[in-house]
């Protein structure tokens, strides 16, 4: 049993606490500016939008944890592809919601398997492999979707925008998902293998960890989460559009880095994902409330990411 004092100390030294603090400060700055107006609505909207960054962030976090050079650049393309295919097949029929979900996940799995196949067969760094495959996947999404925005089934749209007492239900589901993935990371053989590979791939291999299988599973998992995110985001935003994944490349990497996961691999942090995702959304809201134009918003977002990585990064692997 820890005393309350030690417990507090432990919390303050956790790398993810800063993301939540930053989110809180930004929220406070916004609410003070509006004189308390809309303070709950802002939080509710932040929860809604952060949900999607967190879903892709979880997959990206596992990949980044694998160690230097591991990053999934095909997330935006996979989201768009899975969104377009599942929306078109569901064709706004409520009965097709479950098959649609399976199809979106299947699309993700297919992209993940292809990604890993490229990494393995061509012996190229994951960045180049996921980049090349994202070209193909994006093209497939464009050719398949033909630029038409297909509406989601009404029930899916209702579910993804469903709120109970201003709390988005989808956000609660994803909080549960994040908690589950945290347990997977820290308590299962798979999760601990991912961390071990990130800390020292050679040592992990010598210890008998099936390194290649774990990498395969991690890339497939990332793509599956991207597919799921594409499916849910299409429901939330009234259909799949061709550029809907675009902002999630930066978002997926940013929430991982700001959330306190080491970019050198081997140390990951699930609670930080939520803090970082809330922070990113609240920051944009604050800048909007202050009446800044898109130019300033982009500059500040970019500078903050560079600043956070400068302050947090540089942790060497050994």
């Amino acid at each position, binding site marked *: 049993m820890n005393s309350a004092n030690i417990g507090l100390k432990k919390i303050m030294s956790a790398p993810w606490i800063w993301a939540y603090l930053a989110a809180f400060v930004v929220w406070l700055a916004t609410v003070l500016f509006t004189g308390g107006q809309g303070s709950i609505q802002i939080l509710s909207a932040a929860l809604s939008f952060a949900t999607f960054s967190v879903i892709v962030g979880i997959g990206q976090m596992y990949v980044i944890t694998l160690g230097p050079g591991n990053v999934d650049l095909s997330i935006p393309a996979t989201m768009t592809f899975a969104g377009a295919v599942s929306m078109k097949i569901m064709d706004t029929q409520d009965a097709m919601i479950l098959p649609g979900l399976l199809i979106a996940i299947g699309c993700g799995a297919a992209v993940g398997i292809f990604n890993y196949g490229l990494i393995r067969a*061509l012996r190229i760094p994951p960045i*180049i492999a996921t980049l*090349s495959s994202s070209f193909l996947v994006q093209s497939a999404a*464009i050719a398949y979707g033909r630029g038409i925005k297909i509406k989601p089934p009404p029930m899916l749209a209702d579910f993804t925008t469903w709120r109970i007492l201003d709390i988005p239900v989808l956000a609660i589901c994803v909080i549960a998902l994040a908690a589950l993935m945290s347990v997977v990371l820290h308590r299962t053989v798979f999760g601990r293998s991912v961390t071990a590979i990130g800390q020292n791939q050679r040592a992990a291999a010598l210890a008998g960890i099936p390194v290649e299988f774990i990498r395969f599973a991690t890339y497939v998992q990332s793509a599956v989460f991207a597919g799921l995110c594409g499916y849910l985001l299409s429901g939330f935003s009234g259909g799949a559009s061709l550029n809907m994944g675009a902002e999630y490349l930066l978002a997926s990497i940013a929430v991982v880095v700001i959330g306190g996961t080491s970019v050198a691999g081997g140390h990951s942090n699930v609670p930080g994902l939520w803090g970082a995702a809330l922070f990113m959304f609240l920051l944009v809201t604050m800048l909007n409330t202050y009446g800044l134009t898109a130019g300033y918003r982009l500059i500040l977002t970019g500078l*903050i*990411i560079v600043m956070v990585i400068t302050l947090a990064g540089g942790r060497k692997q050994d």
Partner: protein
Amino acid sequence: MEGLLNPRLMRNLLPAFSLTILLILIFYIQPRTMSYLGLNLLLNLALPIAFATLAQMCVMTVNDLDLGIGSFVGFVACVGATFLRDTPAIGILILLGCVGVYAGLGALIHQRNLPSIVVTLGMSFVWLGLALLVLPTPGGKAPDWARAIMTWKTPVVPFTIYASIFVALAVHFLLMRSAYGVVLRGAGGNPRSVERAGWSLLRIKMAMYALAGFFGILSGIALIGLTTSADANIALRYTLLSIAGAILGGGEFVGGRISPIGAVIGATTLTLAGSFLSFLRISPDWQIGAQGGILIIVLALRVLINRMEAR
């Protein structure tokens, strides 16, 4: 026979080989492109992409990746179409400042041991935001001299071809043949031994990033010379194209293995891939897909060659 099958030679010839195949296919399908006007239309946009690819290659030399080059080129285009035309002195100062920022990024990434992907991805937002501040809506006008250079009617073959060859050779001599070029590439291959030999890794990284910024500027100016007006989003796809081009041209992701001539050829190949599809009457939807496909095919060929070498 022995000399022809030399894996090293084959690897070096692979980019030129892919470009030749693509050109032959295009000429076969559409013989009318075999003229001055046809070549000009085909290769019109190759030069800005080639410059962006060289910029990416500089960063790759020191084992980094620049995910912000596309927005940077867009920002330069916006500055070019506004300040550089109206108040050239301020325009030049801004662009010099950009080279300074790039050198600073190199220093920051080296000193704090940061992942270049995250830093440059963050910077891509900064460049895009700055571009929107300079030019909130598409417009502006390219300086007359940029327009004049890019539309220069050179004898026999279009200007793009002369310029590409000249740039490829110039960078080749700078990085592949000069003494300092060897040191620069060595910093990607074996940073420790370069440092022990008394070179400052910090200065090398700053130099390569500054060079990348310089090529980014050339890319932006070449681009507005062709398009006459600018837009903040004009070059966003250059980020991915430049990485693909540098890899296609024989650049390897780690170890300072680069090829300036290959990079220019790679950029040209990617530019042609788009035209090739339209000649085949394949929908432009598949354009980026074809670029990805070419990239994968060339990488696969390289694996085969490497395997031959290993034997």
